[in-house]
């Protein structure tokens, strides 16, 4: 299978990316562009909205499209305004776990509840990467971060379950360790009418892997492969797995 050339979707001046070597966010960027290409999307009719964080840099400045790089936690609210005023535009939010579900969780659940016709792609590296690796609301119990040096005493959000609880019509999770599947999932999300949520489990080797027994990009990818369990259906989400394993797949793509 040939990989489409996605250079035309990128701002050449923004390349190479500023991401650390081995950062999972670059894989997500690539997969998103391939999905756009394979769907033959009108790129000029798309708007990419992000907040603040490493993941928020996935669209801005890399993508040569209309991009709105907003404030920390608020991209979904900005996107709601864009979409409400111009329903004909294809509005996609790409941002981090800290951005989307820690500081911005309120906007996430409300967009799901309203069934706002946008796609939200959350790059979940389970940490605040940009600020140097502090606990996020997605950091698993026990993990070491700068603000949980003894191990995270709290539980993490299952964000897919959260948005499902708010009646999101499309909910999926995939990892950057399975790019082919990730492209498929993003394509399905981008074609879904109504609110679509894709949690992309990404990697931050610099500020998460190194502290948690995965000192290299390879170790992090291997971990994602080992821990992800393929499945479909919403009831999977009510049965959390043990040992840090988690389900991936499209949990629901029904009406919102």
């Amino acid at each position, binding site marked *: 299978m040939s990989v489409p050339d996605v250079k035309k979707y990128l701002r050449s001046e923004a390349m190479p990316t500023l991401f650390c070597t081995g950062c999972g966010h670059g894989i997500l960027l690539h997969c998103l562009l391939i999905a756009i290409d394979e769907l033959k999307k009108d790129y000029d009719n798309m708007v990419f909205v992000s907040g603040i964080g490493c993941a928020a840099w996935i669209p801005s400045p890399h993508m040569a499209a209309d991009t709105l790089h*907003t404030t920390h936690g608020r991209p979904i609210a900005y996107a709601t*305004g864009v979409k409400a005023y111009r329903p004909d*535009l294809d509005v996609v939010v790409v941002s981090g776990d800290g951005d989307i579900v820690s500081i911005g969780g309120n906007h996430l659940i409300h967009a799901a509840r309203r069934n706002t016709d946008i796609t939200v792609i959350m790059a979940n590296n389970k940490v605040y990467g940009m600020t140097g690796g502090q606990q996020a609301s997605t950091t698993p119990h026990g993990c070491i971060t700068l603000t949980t040096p003894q191990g995270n005493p709290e539980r993490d959000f299952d964000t897919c379950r959260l948005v499902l609880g708010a009646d999101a019509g499309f909910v999926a999770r995939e990892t950057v360790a399975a790019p082919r599947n990730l492209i498929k999932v993003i394509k399905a999300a981008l074609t879904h009418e109504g609110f679509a949520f894709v949690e992309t489990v990404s990697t931050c080797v610099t500020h998460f892997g190194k502290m948690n027994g995965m000192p290299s990009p390879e170790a992090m990818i291997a971990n994602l492969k080992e821990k992800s369990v393929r499945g479909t259906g919403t009831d999977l989400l009510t049965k959390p797995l043990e040992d840090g394993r988690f389900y991936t797949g499209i949990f629901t793509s029904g009406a919102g």
Partner: protein
Amino acid sequence: MAYLQGNMACVEGALRAGCDFFGAYPITPSTEIMTAMARRMPEMGRTFVQMEDEIASIAAVIGAAWAGANAMTATSGPGLALMLENIGYAFATETPCVIVDVQRAGPSTGQATRPAQGDVMTARFGCPGDYEPIALAPWSAQESFEMTARAFALAREYRMPVFVLTDEIIAHLYETLDLDREIEVVEHDPPCDLPPFGDARTCERTPMPKFGEGRKLLVTGSTHDERGRRRTTDPQAQMRLVERITKKIERDRKTLAETESYMMDDAEIALVSYGASGRSSLAAMTQARENGRKVGLLRLKNVWPFAQEKIRDIGGGVKKIVVVEMNCGMMRREVERFARAEVVGCHKVAGEIIRPDEIIEVIENVSA
């Protein structure tokens, strides 16, 4: 002629100016604006959204503005506080939008149904970093109508958020007003391919671009160059951005800072006031004149940019300047910076209008 409360006059002004996106979260004493918009906007084929909080409201407004809207929100102090980070974003990204803030007694939740003028410095300095706001301060239903409309024109012209700072009194005061006054209907800029954030060397306005035109816009609240490219460690870029968003207002301050003078020519005591307090001041002035006191009034129609030249030019005949406002002296400090005569405050923070007799008392005290 119409008979409307100030809040409704804001709605009429916004609709006439071409407001086509409204996003807000309910808060007393601004709520009537939102509930009227909920009805009127869809009737007119325009967009209304109720958001989950004020952070989301202003974010949606800014997003809509980049999609091409003449967008507005309405709130009161606690909501304004929540909006500040994103209002700063609008300043940095040169995004036109209108924020009506109906001031109520603070700090914090304060007295939700009671008037104050305690948000003037929030508008001035509430956002982090340097910026120069425009804040209009209507004192009547007529001005609520005209100034809200004008705010849209100014927002477009200067590509920035513009505040309309009313207060609970003006908002809920029913008055007759003329809705047939000429209103500038705000035109959208035609597409062009100039850099979206201006020429690097001047603060000249560049047309507001919008999404969906193939411009590949890079919009960011991080320091950026004229094409929106992030320049987060470049001292020149930082200086240029701050200069760009401040110089345009400094340059036009004299024309932007509108005032109205009453009997200032022979005045020995000058009242300086704005908004609802301006009305009490006018009444006090009239009464004081009847009592033989030479009192004049300089009313600020904009609190920002500040009419510093007009304050400095208050004539040598004026021995005392009395600043009348429903706060502990926010604008008084500003007046003190420029006045040549001694400045005295007539302040009240009781969640009540300042009555003319209370102003007269201050006038009598300073005359003694």
